[in-house]
Every structure is written in structure tokens, then in C-alpha cells.
């Protein structure tokens, strides 16, 4: 069947079966992609290399709440019937440990720096949720869209093939609707799947780019029936109505700017362990540090970039002390950066409503609850910074 091309793809939506999905994965593997997708390991659903649909979390769902994550069997055989796990795609686009360069002293004593080879992995991400897709866009703006570009991130990003899966249900800690990042992905992907479980187990496939169309063409997909397209939209509408959390983003930047001395920060800091889990699981947190090392002879040196967290005392260390010494100041830094200063820095919110920080906080601190509490106890004008130069 011939297909018309629209903006990135211009291809009409199609439908594939599970076998078709396997052909899709095989096609990606043949094209040299490292196929990364969800799989069950250690009683969680994580993103790792997968070979076929047999590796997907068939029939599993996740139960998430503040400080709680469990897997539970579903009553059906859905392949993507869960929301998210502790991983995000950040660990592949922005690896937690990366050698930036090596150096050696030349014979004349000069330092010779060699960049690490340009070859980066070519990833195909299977099952990117729309919140995580938005998170990739947020990190694009930080690493590629600003004054300087990160060459490693840019290269990984260029090579990545993205297969979105639109969520079939919402989790208790989800609030993508509040952050306007879902539950349905509109653009920015190569292919987008919506799993349909009514009747035959099938997937609606939307094409978002030319590479996506090329891959789809190898998969022997059937053109989608309008009924299937409606069913997919209905799945997303149902999902949107199930959101477990809400965050009122109206004027949130100004709200947080004028509430930097709100007593709520004292209250939350009595619970916060500054463990940094939230920054690890958050798909947009990007703070990093560098480690400069050398061998014992002092002839070879290396610089490594490491994922970091604003919850460490090191993060703001200067002149013999940390600027943000108290847990109160560090929690405030994380939350106000995520919801407020990020907007001034990059033009978007830093939060995509994935809910991971709520799920994976050992003491169940809930960013939506904290935002609501601050709104309810708004200090009004004069409580912090009301104009930022």
C-alpha cells in the first residue's frame, strides 16, 4: 500500500499485531540499533536491552504511591500495561558516568588531550511515555539548545530512534495532564504505539518522522481503521481522567519566587533525608560533576563526568563551606529549580509530571502536595524575590 507523507512522516496511521511489533524490533536490530525497552528485573520494570516482545513485561502492571512501588499481575496480557519505573531514558542519553577525555604529558611536558571517540551507541528506545518524551525535550533545551552544546548528548540524541507508547492507564503518582505533557504524545517521536486490548490484541501505530516511516514500511502493517484511531484516543482520554495527582501551574513561578521564606520549607525539611533519590529518578535533573584523576606516576590523566545531585553538600561548596548547608535550603533549591527558575532559564517547566519523585521518595514527600501547601499559605508580595533581574 502506498502511503502519503505528512510533516515528519506524512504517513497514515497503521495497525500491527504483536508479531508485527516483533518484526519492528527485528528491523531496528538489523539497522544496527541497540534496542532498549522495558523489562522486569529485581521486581521492578527497568529499561534495558531487549531482543523481542518476549522480554517485555507482559501481563504486569505497577502500583505506585508515595514511597511505594510494587509489581502486580494484570488480568490481561498487555505488554505495556504499566507506567514507569525508577529508570528514565536519561541514563542512556546522559550516562551517569562518562569519560570526557584523557590526557598525557608529552615528552616536552606539554599536555596532550585526546577526546574520547565520537562513536556513540545508536539506541532505539521502545516504550517512551509521553512524559518521558517531554523530559527528553526538556534536556534537549539544556544540553543542545543553550549557549553551549554537549557533543556527547547531541550525538546520542541524533542517533536515537524513539518509539513512544501512549499510556493505557494513569498511575497514582502521575500528573502529566497538569504539566501538559500527556497522556498522549503528539510529536517528537519516530513512531508512537497505542496498545489496544479490546478484541484482538493490537497496536495503533502513528508515524512521526521519515525514519519512522521507513521502519514501519518493513513491518507489513495494515492501514488503521477509523474505529482503531478512535479507540486509541479513547484510551488516552480515559487515561487522562485517571491522573493520581494534580499540580496547579497557574503563576507557579511567581508563587515560588515570593515564597522562598515560607515556613513550609521548614516543615518539609524535617522529613527530607536529602538522599537525592528524587534527583536520580527524575528524567530532567541534569546536574553533574567532574572528577579529575591521574595515574600514580602522574603521566596520564582523565576527566570523568558523573551524575550529581543538588542535595549533596558538595554541590554548593565554596570557600570552605556550602552555600546551601541546611536540608531546608537544598530541598527548596530542588523544588524551586524544577518548577520555577527552570522556566526563566530554559523557557519550560523542569517538571513533566511523571511522578517518579513521589514514588521513589523513601518518606513519600510529594511535590504536588508541597506546591499546593505553599499556594495555600502564600506569603503574598514581599516574601522572597518578586523581581528577578
Amino acid at each position, binding site marked *: 500500500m502506498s502511503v502519503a507523507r505528512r510533516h515528519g512522516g506524512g504517513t497514515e496511521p497503521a495497525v500491527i499485531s504483536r508479531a508485527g511489533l516483533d518484526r519492528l524490533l527485528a528491523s531496528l536490530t538489523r539497522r544496527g540499533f541497540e534496542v532498549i525497552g522495558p523489562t522486569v528485573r529485581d521486581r521492578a520494570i527497568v529499561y534495558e536491552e531487549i531482543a523481542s516482545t518476549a522480554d517485555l513485561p507482559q501481563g504486569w502492571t505497577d502500583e505506585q504511591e508515595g514511597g511505594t512501588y510494587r509489581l502486580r499481575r494484570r488480568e490481561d496480557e498487555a505488554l505495556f500495561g504499566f507506567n514507569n519505573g525508577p529508570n528514565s531514558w536519561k541514563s542512556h542519553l546522559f550516562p551517569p558516568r562518562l569519560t570526557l*577525555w584523557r590526557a598525557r604529558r608529552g615528552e616536552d611536558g*606539554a599536555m596532550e588531550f585526546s577526546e574520547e571517540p565520537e562513536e556513540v551507541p545508536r539506541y532505539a528506545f521502545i516504550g517512551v511515555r509521553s512524559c518521558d518524551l517531554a523530559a527528553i525535550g526538556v534536556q534537549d533545551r539544556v544540553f543542545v539548545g543553550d549557549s553551549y552544546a554537549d*557533543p556527547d548528548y547531541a550525538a546520542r540524541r541524533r542517533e536515537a530512534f524513539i518509539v513512544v507508547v501512549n499510556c493505557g492507564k494513569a498511575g497514582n503518582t502521575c500528573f502529566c495532564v497538569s504539566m501538559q505533557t500527556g497522556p498522549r504524545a503528539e510529536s517528537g517521536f519516530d513512531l508512537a504505539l497505542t496498545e489496544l486490548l479490546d478484541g484482538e490484541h493490537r497496536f495503533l501505530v502513528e508515524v512521526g518522522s521519515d525514519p519512522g516511516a521507513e521502519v514501519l514500511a518493513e513491518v507489513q502493517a495494515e492501514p488503521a481503521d477509523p474505529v482503531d484511531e478512535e479507540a486509541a484516543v479513547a484510551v488516552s482520554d480515559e487515561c487522562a481522567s485517571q491522573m493520581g495527582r494534580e499540580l496547579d501551574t497557574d503563576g507557579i513561578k511567581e508563587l515560588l519566587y515570593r515564597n522562598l521564606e515560607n515556613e513550609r520549607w521548614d516543615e518539609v525539611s524535617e522529613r527530607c533525608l536529602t538522599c537525592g533519590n528524587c534527583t536520580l529518578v527524575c528524567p530532567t535533573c541534569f546536574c553533574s*560533576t567532574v572528577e*579529575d584523576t591521574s595515574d600514580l606516576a*602522574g603521566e596520564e590523566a582523565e576527566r570523568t563526568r558523573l551524575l550529581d545531585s543538588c542535595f549533596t553538600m558538595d554541590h554548593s561548596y565554596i570557600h570552605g563551606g556550602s552555600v546551601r548547608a541546611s536540608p531546608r535550603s537544598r530541598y527548596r533549591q530542588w523544588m524551586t529549580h524544577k518548577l520555577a527558575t527552570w522556566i526563566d532559564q530554559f523557557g519550560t517547566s523542569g517538571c513533566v509530571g511523571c511522578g517518579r519523585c513521589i514514588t521513589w521518595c523513601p518518606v513519600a514527600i510529594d511535590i504536588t502536595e508541597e506546591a499546593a501547601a505553599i499556594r495555600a499559605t502564600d506569603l503574598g508580595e514581599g516574601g522572597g*524575590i518578586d523581581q528577578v*533581574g
Partner: protein
Amino acid sequence: MRDPMLPLSFRVAAKRRELADTWTLELEPDAGAHDRLGAFAPGQFAMLYAFGSGEVPISVSGGVGGEGPLVHTVRAVGAATRAICAAEPGDSVGVRGPFGNTWPIEEAEGGDVVVVAGGIGLAPLRPAIERLAASRERFGAVTLLYGARSPDEMLFTEELDSWRSAGIAVETIVDSAPAGWSGRVGLVTKLIDEAELSGGHTTALICGPEVMMRFVGAELVQRGVERSRIHISMERNMKCAIGHCGHCQLGPAFICKDGPVFTLAAIEPLMAVREL
């Protein structure tokens, strides 16, 4: 495009000990280097790398405009700075830069300029003072007020006289002095009375410890200088200097790329919040 995290190898061309723990290094690109760094402007900084030890942000303290060697004045306070200060002529130091924004010298033309330096804060201001001296006729009254801990902790003392000769009023004061000192003793704000401050047309450049910049800024504001014309150089923990590591944030500002030079109007509300 060159990876912004990759240093260039520079050689120490000359080295001078300024104080017991502070040295000025003159750096020139290594002979074999293919790449060049852009010219540094007053107020900007470089990330200086000591092989295997670490990297630190150091403001340029001379040699701006691309003529002559790159000059940095470094205080040895940790592993990386101690290693950099231990480098002798002929040794290599890695350099990345220039980073950050500049002292607004052109914008100050036509009015009075008061430069207030505290301690090692005179080093990042020196390139600006040299520019003011070189184009002296473009400015009204130009004053340098320099506060140091003690007489033997004053930097660039020979240059103070050459700046006086160039038509800059230079006043110095120390926090404490040994017996025999016949100069002034007191807080640097005491010197502000000396400066000709024509209120609305004065530009102020301040550099020193953050608390010093705060109280000097407050004093200047009380004397009628506009907050939008008072410029200070901020400092925070930096790992990348390119706005990616997240460490140097102060509220929404990245000190490395939105600064390090900020107007008091912009930065005062952020400095007023503790532990921001």
C-alpha cells in the same frame, strides 16, 4: 566545533609571587597547539587545569585583548590551586575559556567611575582599571578604593602609583596594621567619602568577598549611586563553566554564563535570601 570541556595546553611563561599564598602566572599557548582561545575581556574567567588535580575558575587579571600572555592571579587554597601555584616557568597548565560576561567599561564612558576592591578582588578588576587608565579621557572622575587585610597583603602595590600617574585617584586602607604603618586603618567603606560620586552618572565596579560587596554596595546606594550602575563579580562552585553542570546557580542565574558580573539591581534580591 571544539568540545568546550577540553582544555588547551598552555605554558607558564613567567611567574611572580604576590603574597605569601598568591602568585601571578603569565600563560602562553603551547607551541604545538593548533587551536586558539578567544581573546579575554576584563571580568571574564578561565578554567585552569592542573594535571590530574582538578580545575578551578580564575578571573583574568591582565593580558586582555589577546595581546601578550594570559595573566591570572591565583591564591593557593586547595589541591588544584596549590598545584597551579607550584607550576614553574616551562610547566604546563590547561586552560579553557574565555567564559562569562565583562565589566561594562564602555557603558561607563562619560561619567564618573568608582572601583572598589577588597583583598584579592583587585585581581579581577585590574584589567578594567588598565582599560580605564588607557582611555582616561573618556571618563569623568575615576577613583580606585582598595581595602586589604594588612599592608603586606596588598596586591600590585607598584601599579597603584602608575595608575595615579594615569589620572586615577587611588586610596587604600587596611583592616589592621603592624606598628609603624602610617596609612589608613579601617573598613573599606571609610574610603567611599573620598570618591567623587555624582549620583546618577556614576558607575561602580566592586570585587571582593561577597559580604564586602554587599556592604560596599549598600554604602554606595546610600551615597546616591544607582543600583543598576553598580556592578559586582559573583562567585559560586563551578565544574563546567558552560551552564551544564548546574552547580553555579543562584536562583535562576548561572554565575558562569549569566555572570559573573551582575548589576546590584539584578543580584541584590538573590543575595538577600539566605542559602539560596
